[in-house]
């Protein structure tokens, strides 16, 4: 126990003496501070420049906007479309042209105009654009605008006044939502941030454990260590110190973000994403803590064991690849399900019970769906038992691995040696 304590203290001190570790943490905290205070900084700059820039902004307003051309053989359609398109495309400066298709093509080609609509009728048009962006929704907007025009025309043709037609088309529907489960529009962002933090921290720290063990072997400090300390204490001391360092780093980053949000809350009232991120419920933070610790331990034990089997630092990346791969698969399964908006798919449910994938998968299900409590308990129980099992196995591999030099042994050889020991 004394040796464990000594190793744990030594390792944790090393993290806090590591300039890169401290520097990265402080750097992220400063970055967060800049982000959180950004609206305040921006508004104070605006206030200072207000007098000078207000007029200029108005003057430049029209010039800054991109040009959109509208052309039609039917002048009344062109007129009604111009009014409707001006409302529907506030980012564009609308320009009606009567010079036809070739003029639209020419202006778009030489960059004078960004986009153009040639309206054949109120239900048929051609859209002109140079490069169509992935996020170009102009046609969808134009469809909606023209549909309204067509409907209005149809209604007025059948004898209704334009006002009556307008009130029929723009009839508003009110609704209320009563949710009995989770609201994915709110929990998506914070779940994503937490899953990503879990992914980054487990991968980074797991690899740090692995590299640390391999460094001790390659620098031959291991010769002295194995004759001074029990390998199990060495392994557990190293892994738990990394776990605590990771937790402290996460706490610093998340703590800073929460604290700064409380200070700048008023500036973010209109930002639904930020508001939803920081409205994270406490129970979810506790679940994250639980799954972080268990997930971290299971992977760090594996990383430590694998690190003990390599003698040279350059072999470490190849050796840890299967573990990293396993973790990346879990991440992809979870993120794919999240982006589809349904985390109760069979792969995610299965993953939420497999110990190597459950820290992420079960956490995501808890955050974004309604999971029966017995399922959470089963998943956590499997994970806890697996962490203990992997810990024992890793300690045995470590005990054998640290004595091996030369080429990294094959898994079968390691198992044979473990049985012998």
């Amino acid at each position, binding site marked *: 126990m004394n040796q464990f304590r000594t190793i744990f203290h030594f390792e944790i001190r090393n993290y806090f003496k590591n300039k890169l570790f401290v520097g990265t943490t402080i750097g992220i905290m400063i970055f967060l501070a800049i982000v959180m205070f950004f609206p305040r900084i921006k508004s104070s700059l605006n206030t200072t420049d207000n007098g000078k820039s207000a007029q200029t902004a108005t003057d430049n307003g029209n010039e800054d906007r991109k040009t959109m051309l509208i052309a039609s053989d039917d002048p009344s359609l062109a007129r009604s479309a111009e009014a409707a398109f001006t409302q529907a495309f506030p980012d564009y400066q609308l320009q009606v042209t009567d010079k036809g298709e070739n003029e639209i093509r020419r202006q778009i080609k030489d960059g004078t105009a960004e986009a153009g609509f040639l309206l054949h009728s109120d239900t048929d048009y051609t859209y002109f654009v140079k490069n169509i962006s992935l996020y170009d929704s102009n046609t969808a907007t134009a469809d909606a605008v023209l549909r309204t025009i067509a409907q209005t025309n149809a209604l007025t043709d059948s004898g209704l006044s334009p006002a009556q037609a307008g009130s029929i088309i723009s009839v508003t529907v009110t609704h209320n939502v009563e949710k009995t489960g989770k609201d994915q529009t709110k929990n998506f962002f914070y779940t994503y941030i937490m899953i990503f933090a879990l992914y980054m921290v487990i991968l980074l720290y797991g690899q740090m454990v692995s590299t640390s063990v391999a460094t001790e072997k390659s620098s031959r400090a291991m010769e002295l260590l194995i*004759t001074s300390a029990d390998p199990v204490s060495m392994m557990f001391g190293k892994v738990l110190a990394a776990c605590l360092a990771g937790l402290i780093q996460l706490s610093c980053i998340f703590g800073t973000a929460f604290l700064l949000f409380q200070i700048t809350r008023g500036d973010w009232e209109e930002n639904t994403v930020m508001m939803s991120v920081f409205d994270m419920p406490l129970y979810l933070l506790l679940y994250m803590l639980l799954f972080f610790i268990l997930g971290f331990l299971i992977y760090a034990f594996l990383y430590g064991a694998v690190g003990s089997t390599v003698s040279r630092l350059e072999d470490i990346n190849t050796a840890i690849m299967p573990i990293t791969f396993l973790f990346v698969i879990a991440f992809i399964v979870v993120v794919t399900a999240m982006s589809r908006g349904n985390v109760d798919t069979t792969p995610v449910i299965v993953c939420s019970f497999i110990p190597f994938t459950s820290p992420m998968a079960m956490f995501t299900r808890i955050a974004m769906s309604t999971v029966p409590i017995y399922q959470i308990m089963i998943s956590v129980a499997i994970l806890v038992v697996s962490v203990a099992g992997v810990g024992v196995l890793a300690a045995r591999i470590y005990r054998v691995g640290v*004595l091996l030099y030369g080429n990294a042994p094959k898994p079968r050889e390691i198992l044979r040696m473990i049985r012998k020991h």
Partner: protein
Amino acid sequence: MQLELRELYKNFGQHEVLKGISLCAQSGHAVGLLGRNGAGKTTTIRILMNVFPADRGDILLDGKPVDYRKTRIGYLPEERGLYPKKIILDQLVYFAELKGMRRTDAVTATSQWLERLGMSKFRNKRLDTLSKGNQQKIQLITAVVHDPDIIILDEPFSGLDPVNAELLKEVVREEIEKGKVVLFSSHQMNYIEEFCNEIAILNGGKIVLSGNLREIRRAHAGNALSVRSPMQEDICRYYGSRASRMADGTVQIALPDPQDCQKEMCLITGRWPVEEIRIFEPSLQDIFVQYTRDQV
């Protein structure tokens, strides 16, 4: 205090590494553990240090199995290595703590040893800023800082310049005088001859020769004569294959029967002018080569 290794056996898979190693070491004495590469020295040391157990055999301290919680062992491994990027004082204190010292005691003892070896000015430097010889001295501190009962030194002098070698010799002598059990493994026979009263030569996982060094040398003396003469061409011709020229300019004449020693000396001195004639006493190197030439 008496340390005894009794009939140690160890296999790694099909490979039989130790085949019944036995040796004994008394406090206040150094025992030289000799053997070619792969003879089983490191395995013996690791079993002695409880890194892994022997398949069979006992390690006894004063006749009782060693209690590793109470027995302090210091080890200077052949493969030197500490943390190159870490502060010297921090890592020395860490290793001392791992050996059971309290932090405050570890800091005090480490500082004293740094002072003793003239390394105090480097205490807050990183290890990799030191020369190889100075790194060796730092490594030596890890072996002795916790005042161990048993000290195992594996090739302690390799890579040291003559001045640092003298300093290390002084430290080893002091530790022996303090009554420590010292196990000394080296291929540099002159150091073994200088420090060790007892030796054990390992070959192919077995002890092929062990005992008091002086007695061993005496036992191996007498089966040859060493002659220096201006007529050594004639002497060599006379003795044929029994005579061999040595690098120091003498002729060594093998005696089939050591009893003939006096008779042969009279014969040689009567027949040729002789500057020097004596019974040949082999060096430890000669004995080592003789016993380990045919490695199993």
